């Protein structure tokens, strides 16, 4: 069916369209903050698909609009201030509208958003679009806000002055009906006899004259926004509020998400048990329960956190607070060569680096985007938490305190701080290394008035983000989990072999230990021993680190398995008893203080998450940057781990 073809065609990742050929294509153009996304969501409803433009990491959103006489494909072009592009996003807009560009299908018509509260500026973009010679209709937004703020605009006079169809769209108004009728037949749209002038001064004069002809009266400054900003952007109160918002952010991510995550974990544990009961073959049972269900469950357990994160971020963005937060943080960010908007991406990385990396799309400069992506994995993601909890539990006695603060809590905070400070330091180095090649983009950021958030926009943003995360992470993590399962359980040990080695085949735990000892993963672990020996790791820890490539928290479960812990979820007691024999013959506990410190620091820096690498590859359009990230982070992890091992060894 054609409708499904339109919404399904090649939507899983990079593609260049593939939508129904005969439906008219309409492009939606406008500056950011003009209500473009709201219009797009309102017109297309659920019939949307997202992807990337060919060859660039600019997100592409297309949807199908049901019109009275059929359907129309609406393409939501990235927000742009000018057809003279300054960023890859804006270049895409110019390329799509450029009739001489044959790579991208030319639209049959263009909708241009005019923000009625900033009409002259919007008319500037319209004048550039009209130069392209495509049938154009102007859509006027925020007319209700204009009236509320004491401004006015005669839309019909505007239409007469411009010579193209002009529709004012407010929720519940009749503009939408007329717009849908217009969308049916772009070739019927009126065109102006003369194009607007191109010279900047003349274009500005043209915009002023059109506004005057439409009886445009500028709105007063939004009193509500001014009043709120007097607090939220106040040097003292604003900073305090910002700190409070950040604190709340983290509380919600970790505290509120925790029970939801618990449910997901229980659901998957139940699934695993059910699979265990119904599958006879032990080998297959282990595969299904551990690799498949465990792997997928390990990904989906993060969905509540990611969903909550996106709900908050899209709420703050819809309301208008995010640009203000970026404004407050810009000075700090610019010291390390980033900008205020990078702060949001890095903040998101505290839950998981994947949404953080996806959030870098808001940065206009591709250099900033890459720099932020390179350091986002250093922000302490929540997958590291179970590892930190286990290792800190072994390193620091439970009751110890420093003043009024528990030492374990201080250690945890210290690790978070180490990650954040390292991210800033690496960003600074990155700037030094790459800053000379291209001129820096200027920083500019519109501060929109506070608006009531659109629930539909938020819902769509959250859904898109979660769907993207699940699709991307699930496939990669599942694949890695399966590979790891194979490494840990092959070669399969025959009963005779085991008995010859003195293993009691009735004892499940002993069998598991024997299988692990002789598995392919163990061989890899032993092969890596020379590399990690200066950090105090032995082959068993190496296997654990290897398993964390699927997802960092898998380290805990793997170590539990290796230690044949009676309680795999809390292997601490068993791990503490493990010993290793030094080359000189002495025996030491495997998890002594220097080794634990080295392991902790290793986890702060190492890029273990394959899913993050996969997303990085997609966002940067190639393998170059993910490989650089992996290599530099591994080098950093090894060096810092070695330092930690040496320093703690001297202190203890």
């Amino acid at each position: 069916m054609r409708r499904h073809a339109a919404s399904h065609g090649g939507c899983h990742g990079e593609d260049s369209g593939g939508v129904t050929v005969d439906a008219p294509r309409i492009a939606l153009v406008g500056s950011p903050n003009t209500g473009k996304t709201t219009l797009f969501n309102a017109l297309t409803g659920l019939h949307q698909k997202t992807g990337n433009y060919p060859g660039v990491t600019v997100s592409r959103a297309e949807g199908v609009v049901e019109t009275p006489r059929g359907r129309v494909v609406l393409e939501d072009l990235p927000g742009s201030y000018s057809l003279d592009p300054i960023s890859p996003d804006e270049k895409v807009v110019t390329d799509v509208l450029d009739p001489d560009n044959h790579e991208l299908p030319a639209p049959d018509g263009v909708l241009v958003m005019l923000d009625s509260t900033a009409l002259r500026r919007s008319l500037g973009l319209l004048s550039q679009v009209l130069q392209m010679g495509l049938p154009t209709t102007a859509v006027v937004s925020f007319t209700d806000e204009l009236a509320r703020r004491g401004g006015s605009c005669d839309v019909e006079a505007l239409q007469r002055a411009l010579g193209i169809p002009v529709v004012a769209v407010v929720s519940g108004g009749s503009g939408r009906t007329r717009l849908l009728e217009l969308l049916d037949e772009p070739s019927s749209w009126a065109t102006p006899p003369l194009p607007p002038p191109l010279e900047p001064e003349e274009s500005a004069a043209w915009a002023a004259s059109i506004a005057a002809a439409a009886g445009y009266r500028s709105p007063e400054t939004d009193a509500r926004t001014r009043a709120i900003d007097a607090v939220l952007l106040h040097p003292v109160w604003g900073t305090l509020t910002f700190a409070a918002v950040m604190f709340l952010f983290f509380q919600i991510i970790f505290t509120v998400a925790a029970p939801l995550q618990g449910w997901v974990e229980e659901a998957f544990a139940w699934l695993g048990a059910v699979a265990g009961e119904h599958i006879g073959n032990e080998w297959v049972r282990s595969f299904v329960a551990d690799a498949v269900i465990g792997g997928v469950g390990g990904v989906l357990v993060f969905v509540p956190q990611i969903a909550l994160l996106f709900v908050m971020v899209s709420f703050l963005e819809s309301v208008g607070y995010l640009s203000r937060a970026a404004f407050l943080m810009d000075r700090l960010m610019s010291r390390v060569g980033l900008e205020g908007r990078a702060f949001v991406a890095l903040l998101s990385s505290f839950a998981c680096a994947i949404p953080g990396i996806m959030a870098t799309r808001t940065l206009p400069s591709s250099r900033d985007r890459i720099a932020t992506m390179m350091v986002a994995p250093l922000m302490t993601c929540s997958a590291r938490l179970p590892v930190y909890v286990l290792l800190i539990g072994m390193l620091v006695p439970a009751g110890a305190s420093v003043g009024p603060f528990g030492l374990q809590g201080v250690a945890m905070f210290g690790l978070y701080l180490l990650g954040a400070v390292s991210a800033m330091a690496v960003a600074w180095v990155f700037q030094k290394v790459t800053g000379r090649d291209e001129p820096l983009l200027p920083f500019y950021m519109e501060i929109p008035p506070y608006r009531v958030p659109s629930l539909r926009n938020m819902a769509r943003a959250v859904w898109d983000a979660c769907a993207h995360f699940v699709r991307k992470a699930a496939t990669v993590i599942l694949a890695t989990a399966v590979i790891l399962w194979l490494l840990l359980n092959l070669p399969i040990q025959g009963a005779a072999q085991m008995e010859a080695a003195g293993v009691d085949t009735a004892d499940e735990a002993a069998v598991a230990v024997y299988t692990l000892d002789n598995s392919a993963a163990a061989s890899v672990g032993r092969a890596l021993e020379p590399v990690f020996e200066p950090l105090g790791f032995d082959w068993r820890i190496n296997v654990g680190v290897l398993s964390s490539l699927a997802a960092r928290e898998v380290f805990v479960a793997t170590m539990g398995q290796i230690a044949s812990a009676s309680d795999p979820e809390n292997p601490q007691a068993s791990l503490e008893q493990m010993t290793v024999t030094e080359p000189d013959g002495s025996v030491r506990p495997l998890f002594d203080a220097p080794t634990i410190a080295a392991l902790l620091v290793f986890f702060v820096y190492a890029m273990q998450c394959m899913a993050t690498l996969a997303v990085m590859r997609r966002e940067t359009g190639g393998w170059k940057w993910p490989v650089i990230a992996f290599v530099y982070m591994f080098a950093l992890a090894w060096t810092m781990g070695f330092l930690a091992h040496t320093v703690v060894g001297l202190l203890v």
Partner: protein
Amino acid sequence: MSAAVRRLTSRDMRRATGRVVSLAARGGADANGDTRGHHLGCAPDHTGDVVLSELEVGSSGVIVGFSSALRPEVARRLFDLGFVPGVEVTVVRRAPAQDPVVFRADGVDVALRCSEACGVLVAAGHNPDEFVLRSRRRALLASAS
């Protein structure tokens, strides 16, 4: 589609951008014919003109042009954001660290860093008539010399 419609080419756009930048010349040379210095420092060097980054919070100025030290694409972007010569700009607030600064131009609030804002030349004091008078006087002076 009307045959009279001219298609926009990248050459047209570059030329338009060049015109935006040459608006710096409109800011004029001072009596000695010196134009702006080569550094992007925030010192005014046009008698009577200040740069945007120098205005106090709450004060306004009318934009007269862009500094020639400002990169063309930056000038173009500021123009497209609403920083058009002839428009009155008000300084709304500064960040706690004094940078960046929120400006209000033609109904829109835009945050700029000082490094960009000091490329925008304004006539201090917000009397648009005074601006017209000055630029006419300047044009007279230029034509007389």
